[in-house]
């Protein structure tokens, strides 16, 4: 895991790339002037925004990240279909539940992505993230955290936890190498 | 459509006015906000309604009246500034005067003296 940037002028390369894409999407144009401007902004904006950013692990496996995104998209589509059925179906047959998922991830960015993913996918919503121990000495290593998830219709708690950990948390650990 | 639009303006105005007549700063702020919606729609309507005529040259052959839109923009910004000031003033008034009551003598003040007896 690395948390310091490779170049001082390009502290967050993926962010810059994302911004560049955003710029092109906004303008819907590949005209040279837009490209130029996009590059300038994609370099400049992350540069000034870097200070407004807590240190986060960097993406080490971009391709894996891409795969992760695609997988999530696919899951979202299926999830939506399932949930639609649940919503329109008889309410009394639903088995809502709160499930606590222990997290191996320790850093904010990956945890956020995981929580976001959980919220977006089948019948689950990330309710809260909290540490195991309430009080810590300042220099102790970061504690393990839990993700509290609300499930619309729980069938098997263990399976759900396993799915979240393997399908989402594991790739994230890999992507950020943390 | 014009009838409906006018009804909306009138109703927003009435609601805003009613809220401004409550004796506390916060409803007054909400009332003023409501009133400024009504005002903005009113100004907007003074350029007549137009369903497909955004005033960007080259996108249509029937443009809405751009001037009221510009006026509304100015009015929105000024309204925002004024609302912000009033809101903070309301806080200040609460802090300085101990209450957000602005409707003359507080009816509760009389009761406050009676309370210990009850």
């Amino acid at each position: 895991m690395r948390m310091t940037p490779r170049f001082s002028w390009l502290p967050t390369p993926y962010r810059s790339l994302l911004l560049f894409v955003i710029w092109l999407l906004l303008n819907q144009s590949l005209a040279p002037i837009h490209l130029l401007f996009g590059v300038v902004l994609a370099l400049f904006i992350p540069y000034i925004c870097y200070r407004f950013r807590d240190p986060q692990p960097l993406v080490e496996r971009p391709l894996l990240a891409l795969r992760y995104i695609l997988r999530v998209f696919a899951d979202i589509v299926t999830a939506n279909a399932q949930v639609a059925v649940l919503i329109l179906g008889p309410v009394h047959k639903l088995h809502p539940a709160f499930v606590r998922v222990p997290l191996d991830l320790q850093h904010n960015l990956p945890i956020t992505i995981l929580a976001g993913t959980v919220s977006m996918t089948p019948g689950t919503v990330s309710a809260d993230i909290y540490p195991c121990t309430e009080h810590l000495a300042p220099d102790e290593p970061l504690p393990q955290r839990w993700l509290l998830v609300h499930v619309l219709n729980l069938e098997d708690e263990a399976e759900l936890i396993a799915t979240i950990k393997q399908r989402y948390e594991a790739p994230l650990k890999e992507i950020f190498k943390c | 459509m014009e009838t409906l639009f006018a009804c909306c303006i009138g109703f927003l105005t009435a609601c805003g006015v009613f809220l401004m007549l409550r004796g506390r700063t916060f409803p007054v702020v909400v009332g003023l906000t409501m009133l400024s919606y009504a005002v903005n729609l009113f100004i907007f309507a003074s350029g007549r309604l137009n369903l497909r005529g955004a005033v960007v040259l080259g996108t249509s052959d029937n443009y809405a009246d751009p001037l009221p839109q510009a006026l509304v923009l100015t009015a929105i910004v000024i309204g925002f500034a004024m609302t912000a000031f009033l809101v903070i003033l309301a806080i200040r008034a609460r802090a300085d005067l101990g209450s957000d009551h602005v409707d003359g003598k507080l009816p509760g003040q009389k009761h406050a003296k009676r309370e210990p007896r009850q």
Partner: protein
Amino acid sequence: MILAWILLLPLLGTLVPLLAANWRRSACALATAIPPAIALMLLLYHGSAVFAGETLRYTLGWIPLLGLDISIRLDGLAFLFSLLILGIGLLIILYARYYLSEQDSMPRFYAYLMLFMTAMMGIVLSNNVLQLWMFWELTSISSFLLISFWWHKSEARRGARMALAITGAGGLCLLAALLLLGQITGSYDLDVILASGAVIREHGWYPLVLVLFLLGCFTKSAQFPFHFWLPNAMAAPTPVSAYLHSATMVKAGIFLLARFYPAMAGTDLWFLLVSITGLTTLLVGAYLALFKHDLKGLLAYSTISHLGLITLLFGMGTDLAAVAGVFHIINHATFKASLFMAAGIIDHESGSRDMRKLNGLWHFMPITATLAMVAAAAMAGVPLLNGFLSKEMFFAETLHQHLLGSLSWIIPVLATIAAIFSVAYSMRFIHDVFFNGKPKGLTKTPHEPPRYMRMPVEVLVVLCILVGVAPGYVIGDLLQAASFSVLGGTVPEYSLAIWHGFNLPLLMSVVALAAGSLIYINRKHLFDFQNTLPGVDALTAFEQLMAALAKRCQQFYNWLDNGSLQRYMVFVLLAIIVLAGAPLLELDTLFGGRPELPVDAVNATGAAMLLISAFATVVFHRQRVVALLMISVVGLMVSIAFTRFSAPDLALTQLSVEVVTIILLMLALFFLPHKTPKQSSPTRVLRDIGLASMVGVVIGSISYAIMTRPFNTISDYFLANAKTGGGGTNVVNVILVDFRGFDTMGEIAVLGIAALGIFKLLTRIPVFKPSSDGEGRPWARERHPLLLATVAQSILPMALMVSVFIFFRGHNLPGGGFIAGLITAVAIILLYISQGVDWVKARMNIEYQRVVAIGLLIALLTGLASLLFNRPFLTSWFDYFKLPLFGEIELASAIAFDLGVYITVVGATLLILASLGKMTTSHRPTHQEPT
């Protein structure tokens, strides 16, 4: 020009004592006397011309628009009065030098006195009635200052205020009268007015003018029933009384009667009002004078009585009576001034003015006593003194009039009765003070005054005697000249002889002397009778009246203005209903002929949601957060309406403002109660619903009427010129930054100022910080939720990117600096929300007010740049450049202007929200929080 100096010198003389403030007292007095002395000499220099019947004039243009010029007119009457004012004034200066004590500020006294003298001179010398009024009011002011000279005495203050109120009221009436005279005659020139007597008297307004005019005169001259201020003005130092109540202030009213005699007199109404007032005053004054234990009080009522006498003379309307009036003016001035000064000497040297204490002063101050006795005898009308002569003429005139028809005999009878009392109080003055045993309870032993303090009295008493003995030689010419100007040219035959043989007037005098003595001797019964009458203290009554008036005013004022904002608001709303509603009633139909657009289900749904949410806001208004949620639906629906009706710029702006407003209100609600208590009574709610719906109906109807009317507008010009003249295709934006860029500059200034104001409001605010929410829940522990913080950090660069995009496209497509600025600001605010003030401050320590200033400065300088090219402020510039590889790009000054807008908006929004956020951070105890 010399004429002008007569007026100017006393005015300059006002400054002399102030400049000479540090000199010795005598030097100061001497210096003060120099200007009026020169003025007196200048006046005398003109004497021969005046006696020859000439009227001297001098005019200097001042305010032609108002018909107000500096215009001086010296004729016989003016000469007579100027002589009295300056002459007696000089004597008063001398007298006051000795009268004033070391503690009294002599420069201040003299300055006031000279100011007063100037005012009096101005009145008598005016040839312009507006100028006359100006000086008239100046006498009120300066007399106020003189009467209240000893301001630490309550009665002096109150007396002065009363005098000011009464004479001020009269002055205002006089002003009305003079202005009306000006309207009637078409000129404010005294010459013209005096020459237009016939026109005036026949004019329909004459009665009104006369009444107003007389109110002015009578209040000033202390005529009944306005006489009461004068005795209370006796709280002034005696030199003031001597001056004001003998020769000057009170005579101003008499002067006016004389001055306007040619223009106003000669009608039945004049006679009725003037003579009856005069007669009443004569009697009342004479009667009341007898019972005053205070020397100056006695003299005050005597003054009132004598002024009544003069008024009566002018009221009788015969030429001879007028001459007698003028004569008595002179005589009264001399004997009354000397009497006041004598009273002052007595007061000064014995420490009291109470006749019950003052007895037998003859032994202590024989010379003063002699002088006073002579003057008092003149007042009583004893032969061989001046008072006798004019009184004889007065008696004669009362006998010659037939004004009351068969009841005309009443006037001489009443005049005799008044004379009887006059004799009685004069005797009281003489006997009670100088004889009648020994002084009782005086604080010091009386003695003669300093030599020069007595001198003014001596001069005047000598004059009394001289006039009384040889009137023709001493006073003949002067009286002739003055009467000449009063009567407007035709002076009747009159004789100034001491002896007219045994006739009815002499009999009346004798009766008066005899009966007066008798009354004085048997005064005890009269005093007892008088004591049984309820005493009325005019001063207290007046003060009580004023206090009652003030109290009533307060009650009314507090009744009207009860401090309720909502009451104020009701008036605004009523105004809207009445002023905007009334014209609508005159419309036959609201519909204006323009066909309506069709309503579809979606729009109907949108409208329904708007209405429902607005209504819900009202219903839920006491649960404030819920009301906020409801009103944000309203805002959302309004934005959608803007989208629907072809106004994308508006929708963008409304949406971004909406977000900021909600943040702001949430911030604010922390410091405000979360619930509104229920306080409105049902009737109040009903009233408010009524008002609100009426306003709503009015506004809605107008809106409908406008929307359905055909329309011609200047907007076509903007559509036609936006691209060619403003270089942009988004016409709304081009209007904002170019056609009406000046509005936008004002608008961002408003935003910037609001931010400054909010910063100001929040400095040193004694905040009330609730420790739990409205339902008593303590606040959650986690300050900065993890997810939120991370997302906020990633949103920021994207938001900036979008801002840049929105900013640059604004000129041609929906967007612009304002919206871009709000997006940036919101993104930064999100950081504040998610990470806290300290976190942001550690990374960005910017004073936002400076950002605001820079933004505004950029906009301003962009506008000013066009001045360099000799184009008007804010003239836009744009051009298209072809760059290799990149193609054509547009550069426009509007972008720089919009940049100013952008920066201002960012700065102002952050200043507002961040300073509100910062309020609590410094005080809040920091919790250990899980990271």
